[in-house]
């Protein structure tokens, strides 16, 4: 008899988990749609990402590596919308190709921090007790390290490869995510659906990753949206110092850095990459703010 009951209970539990969030998501979507700034930001990011993604196949877009010394450092014109750099390379094309790198670093860095932070926070919060204490103590200590210096050392002394950059940036960003997820898990784990899952004999990892983590998605999405610009910013900062993306590849950080050196002579070389970088960061921040207001209306702490 108990064997016959069990599958039924499982589907009930699954229904419960599945239906509650749908209402939440629909509600959130309604709130988000009313936020015109957030929608505009999302559309801007969509178009930009698409343009960056499709840059190799965009018709009429010059090869970003194509040098033409006759066109050395020409101001913006009909043929070259953003002008050209000292080597005669088309700046619009360089900005779009640079965007590929910057956005890729932003998304992958966020993904790394997401995987580490969510698992770490969920395990810590669900385990509780001594394990939780130790795990959070480690996070506290890591927080107090002057991280950026260690990242700089890592990049200088070992290798300036993209992979190292992803690792270094992901390592910096997961701490806050872990704290957020842990807080959520702490409040969720005493709820009845978790008790039900435990009563059904599910393993700890199944409870955490199949039942609890999906319910932390709201805050996680909000924070992830705000992590992407943070990672892009860090990458640009490191590239600005000459530690990030190495030539001939370019990111927005290296373009700004190169442009800043010839600021007085060819101002467009800094203006366009700077605008691309700043507008992208602004759009992500607007979208993140909008998502927070939509997904978590009570948590409007810092305005």
């Amino acid at each position: 008899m108990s064997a016959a009951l069990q599958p039924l209970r499982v589907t009930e539990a699954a229904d419960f988990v599945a239906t509650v969030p749908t209402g939440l998501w629909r509600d959130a979507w309604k709130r988000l749609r009313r936020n015109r700034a957030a929608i505009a930001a999302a559309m801007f990011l969509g178009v930009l990402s698409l343009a960056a993604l499709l840059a190799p196949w965009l018709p009429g877009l010059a090869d970003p590596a194509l040098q033409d010394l006759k066109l050395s450092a020409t101001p913006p014109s009909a043929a070259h919308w953003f002008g050209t750099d000292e080597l005669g390379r088309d700046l619009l094309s360089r900005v779009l190709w640079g965007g590929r790198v910057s956005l890729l670093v932003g998304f992958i860095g966020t993904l790394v921090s997401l995987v580490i932070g969510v698992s770490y926070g969920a395990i810590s919060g669900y385990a509780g007790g001594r394990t939780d204490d130790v795990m959070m103590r480690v996070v506290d200590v890591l927080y107090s390290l002057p991280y950026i210096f260690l990242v700089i050392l890592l990049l200088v002394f070992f290798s300036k490869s993209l992979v190292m950059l992803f690792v270094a940036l992901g390592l910096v960003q997961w701490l806050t995510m872990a704290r957020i997820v842990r807080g959520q898990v702490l409040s969720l784990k005493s709820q009845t659906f978790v008790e039900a899952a435990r009563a059904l004999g599910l393993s700890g990892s199944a409870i955490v990753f199949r039942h609890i983590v999906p319910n932390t998605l709201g805050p996680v999405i909000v924070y992830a949206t705000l992590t992407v610009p943070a990672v892009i910013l860090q990458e640009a900062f490191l590239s600005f110092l000459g530690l990030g993306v190495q030539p001939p590849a370019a990111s927005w950080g290296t373009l700004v850095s190169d442009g800043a050196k010839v600021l007085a002579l060819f101002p467009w070389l800094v203006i366009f990459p700077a605008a691309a970088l700043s507008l992208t960061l602004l759009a992500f921040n607007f979208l993140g703010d909008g998502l927070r207001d939509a997904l978590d209306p009570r948590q409007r702490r810092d305005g």
Partner: protein
Amino acid sequence: MSTYVLRRLAMMIPTLWAIATLTFFMVRLAPGGPFMAEKDIPPAVKEQLMRRYGLDRPLGEQYVTFLKNAARFDFGPSYRFPARSVREIILEGLPVSAELGGWALLFALLVGVPLGVLAASRHNSATDHAAMTLALAGVSIPNFVLGPLLVLVFSLTLFLVPPALWQTPSSRILPVLTLATSYVAYIARLTRGGMLEVLGQDFVRTARAKGLPESSVIGKHALRLGVLPVVSYLGPAAAGIIMGSIAVESIFGIPGTGRFLVNAAFNRDYTLVMGVVLFYAVLLMVFNLVVDVVYSWLDPRVELS
């Protein structure tokens, strides 16, 4: 209170030890030595150099010596500038960096807090929306982007202020502005959020009911609590300003400590790198401690334990 401070100071030691150890081994295990640039130096000279810096001893012994000396803030001579000690180099740049960072933090507070209070006191008005949109824009412009743009507009087009260096008072304007802008913006957002929360509380209603003028309701009663999120943000802000000063110092050619870190790392100047990293770590931890003490002074509900 004093036991709390003492305990916090004692807790810094293991953290510092961890940072020192990590830095030491990272630097030593890295491929390439400090004398790589001078590949052609005769073996005898190289041997002498290695001996002078103690690099010929076993790694364990080097580590112990390093820890002992680091405790006295003595990192020996710089590899790159052998005539000068690391301590000298750091202390020489420090007043400049401290001035830059101090002005930036002060400016961020003096502009950010009033802006946030203004936005909160006119919640959902046009002023509020304008201030917050501006603040979000400010957060989104990295300092190394803002710096060149400010130079372009105010130095190279309008000729109002010098484009670089750290000499006349007017040469300080652009670097400080560059470093402070994103913190002005973030502090304004934090203040607004904190104030909005406080303004809805009972004691504020009581103060208003007593017939106090709005200015003293906000300035005397609400501000003290409303500004708490800003106080707890000061630790991360100081860390961010130190990091930002690395970029700002190199954009404007300011002879501060931050600039040394990147140069030293590129030059594989081991002793200088370790010195600067540990120095900044101590600075940050002391600052965080001060922030926590100030926090409990502002909000008596928080007990230091």
